[in-house]
């Protein structure tokens, strides 16, 4: 079933990690195979933050095969050497878990495609996000477990989207968890609730155009689809509007960039979404209780209509 949640503060920053944790935890009955956060933190905007994994979480019902930690160490060494080769300087390095790392890197080229391809040519290595504000954190378990494991409670930023997953069409692993990074675009992320029925047709067409897929999760298609539209010059909102006809199936999805947050709902309006909008805050989720976790007082909320696309700026 899956649950999604998102919020954007306009004109101020807040503890978005803590807020999103509350929203996603309220939706945990919609799925707790894995939970993911795309957090847009307050940074000076100079360096890239790269979140990546060198292995899978093999506990908590995972469908992945266990590997020795020494394999992770080897992969990390190769990542470091490739970064050095490409002229990327590691400013700060954090190994949060044996398989999950956060690097702050100085890298001056704008095109991240070559960079990402090089890093991900290492078997078992996947970049979860690359951006100057975005950090994608996803792992197995419910929102509270992931938040505690990665210490997300204190992260301050302007906006965030997240996903509580019930695995239905692909494995219980980090690579199939949401959010998906809008590879290879800096600071783009997507979460989705629903099923896409023309996944393989779209995937084949996009792969022929040089786009990359890391999982067999249908939701990843949305990120790749939008990335391809943006690569061809479309704005985020234009790409989202095109997706209403380009993607077949039932869906509600959120997409976020460095300074915006958007939602799209399919023309059948088959997947739920409740939205709260004020001058300084937009909060939305699969169920009202997600919004109530950060706004317990009586507020006005509504369901967006079928085929509706909305984008908000910070």
């Amino acid at each position, binding site marked *: 079933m899956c649950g999604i949640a998102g919020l954007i503060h306009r004109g101020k920053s807040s503890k978005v990690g803590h807020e999103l944790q509350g929203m996603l935890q309220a939706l945990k009955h919609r799925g707790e195979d894995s939970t993911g956060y795309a957090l847009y933190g307050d940074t000076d905007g100079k360096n890239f933050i790269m979140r990546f994994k060198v292995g899978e979480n093999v506990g908590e019902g995972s469908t992945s095969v266990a590997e020795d930690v020494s394999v992770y160490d080897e992969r990390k060494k190769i990542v470091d050497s490739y970064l050095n080769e490409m002229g990327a300087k590691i400013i700060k390095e954090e190994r949060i878990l044996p398989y999950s790392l956060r690097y702050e890197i100085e890298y001056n080229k704008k095109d991240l495609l070559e960079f990402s391809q090089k890093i991900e040519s290492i078997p078992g290595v996947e970049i979860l996000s690359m951006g100057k504000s975005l950090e994608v954190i996803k792992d197995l378990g419910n929102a509270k477990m992931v938040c505690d494991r990665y210490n997300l409670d204190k992260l301050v930023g302007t906006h965030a989207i997240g996903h509580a997953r019930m695995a239905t069409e692909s494995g219980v692993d980090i690579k199939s968890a949401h959010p998906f990074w809008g590879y290879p675009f800096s600071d783009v992320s997507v979460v989705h609730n629903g099923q896409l029925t023309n996944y393989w047709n779209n995937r084949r067409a996009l792969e022929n155009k040089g786009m990359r897929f890391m999982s067999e999760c249908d939701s990843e298609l949305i990120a790749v689809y939008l990335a391809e539209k943006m690569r061809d010059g479309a704005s985020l909102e234009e790409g989202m509007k095109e997706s209403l006809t380009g993607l077949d199936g039932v869906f509600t999805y959120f997409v976020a960039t460095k300074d915006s947050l958007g939602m799209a709902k399919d023309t*059948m*309006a088959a997947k739920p979404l*409740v939205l709260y909008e004020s001058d300084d805050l937009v909060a939305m989720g699969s*169920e009202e209780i997600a919004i109530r976790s950060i706004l317990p007082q009586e507020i*006005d*909320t*509504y369901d967006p209509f079928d085929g509706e696309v909305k984008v908000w700026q910070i």
Partner: protein
Amino acid sequence: MANIKSVSKKTKAQAMGMHTEVLTGRTQQKFFNPDEAENFYYFGTHDVDFNKRTDLDVKDMTAAEANKEIDNLMGQGYGTIVIKNPQGKHSLGVGILNKLNLIFEGSLGYFGMGSCDGPIVRINGRVGWSCAENLMAGKVVIEKNAGSCFGAAIRGGDLICKGSVGARTGIDMKGGTIIIGGDAGAFTGFMMQRGRIIILGDVGINLGDSMYDGTIFVGGEIGSYGSDAVDAELTKSDQDWLKRKLKVAEIGENFDVSKMKKIVAGKKLWNYDNLEPTEKKGAI
């Protein structure tokens, strides 16, 4: 396999008033005979006094606990119950088969007021998906907006939303009236079989798709008509009924009903059949 024809089982079912004859077709209407209605009570329901009023704060309760407590209060004779801090919880107020004045000071999540028969409910907030699903009788008023599948499969009663509603409002409804003060989403009246829907605002695509029967009145723009949904003449009788209904619903009392559109089933669907099998024999 149990012998369902055994005398003891048959007698027990009859003693409970479940049936006195073979229930086929519209013979079920016998149980809704107004002459019998006054003496008709569901098993486990309560005799309540509307002047006996109490508050119930459900902030720290689960839906099951809250519903159980509502039942306990009705058992103590409370006929007016005010629910505080519902905070979007799902499945609140379900399965109430009593006469009862129920007021929610806040919003409900999914499946609020489902499978009810009789209560008069006011929700001073919003409701999520599938509000008042399977409502048999009574009145449910929502002061703000409602989610999708509003009034799914209702058989009777009045369901009123003063704001806007999501998609598939009145899906599969078999009776009763749904009144929307604002706009309605796609597939409104999808597969409806009987009853009436009134929308004062605009409505989305595929209005009345595959409807078998019933009537939809729309005051605003229509996104598109669904399969087998067609326009019909708005009669004087329709207008009088609309005026009465909107007044009772405390909504759109001054609305110009003469300009509303009336949509009914074209009855061209291959599987459309207005008669129950037993009635068909008589018709032939």
